């Protein structure tokens, strides 16, 4: 069942990419349908990572909101890099902190870790069990709970709905 859901989602994603690569012509669409179908079947036995995505209207709404949250953090992080690089004294207080996440699915953890890497001053260095080890350029909270609140919480409330 999980594999089936994974394959359906994968098929849709592949089809969208094919249309972006080519055009709306009938020939291309038929070729894309056949190719996407074959690939979805060929990869059927691999790990069904996409099955964790929730397909409810609420999840869709949250994913759109998530894009904006992510974009805001990405811009802030670039301004942060710019400020640090251009300050002559180079203000730093780096270190690796441990945080934990409530997300269970692998794809959820991947999106969370990627988002953390692209937000101000943080970079995911290792993922083990439910813990993420994060290189933080300017440590503000030393204990696990505080760092989790500071780094993870803003993404987790959206990702929990999207990926379950």
């Amino acid at each position, binding site marked *: 069942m999980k594999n089936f859901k994974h394959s359906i989602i994968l098929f849709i994603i592949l089809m969208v990419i094919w249309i972006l690569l080519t055009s709306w012509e009938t020939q291309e669409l038929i070729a894309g349908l056949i190719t996407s179908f074959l690939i979805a079947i060929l990869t059927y036995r691999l790990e069904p990572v996409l099955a964790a995505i929730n397909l409810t209207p609420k999840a869709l709404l949250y994913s759109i909101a998530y894009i904006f949250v992510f974009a805001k953090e990405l811009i802030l992080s670039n301004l942060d890099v710019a400020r640090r690089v251009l300050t002559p004294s180079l203000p730093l207080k780096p270190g*690796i902190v*441990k945080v934990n996440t409530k997300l269970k699915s692998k794809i959820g953890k991947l999106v969370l870790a*990627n988002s953390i890497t*692209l937000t101000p*001053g943080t*970079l995911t*260095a290792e993922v083990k069990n439910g813990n993420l080890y994060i290189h933080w350029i300017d*440590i503000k909270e030393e204990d696990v709970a505080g760092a989790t609140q500071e780094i993870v919480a803003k993404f987790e409330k959206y990702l929990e709905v999207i990926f379950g």
Partner: protein
Amino acid sequence: MIGAIIALIGSIFLLLGALGLLRMPDVYNRMQAGTKSTTLGSMLFLIGAALYISKGQIWSRVILLILFIVFTNPISSHALARAAHKIKIPMAEETVKDDLTEDE
């Protein structure tokens, strides 16, 4: 005109990222500067360039490229950071804390 300004902002972010690569004290901090600014910088640079000739075919390619970069750039940085920590590349003198080494 708008495209040109967006491309210019993007290229400035790229430059700042490269400057960060040069100035930061250790490999992890360099990675931080490198990843973030090349991601946003190349995004803006590509959008700005696509605005030069706005055509459906170009936009679809540029969007695919941006999605690919946003998805893979953090993964490759993470893989490098993990490898660097595994082979014990030393961290900068200013480092205050290392939970990962403590837990291993």
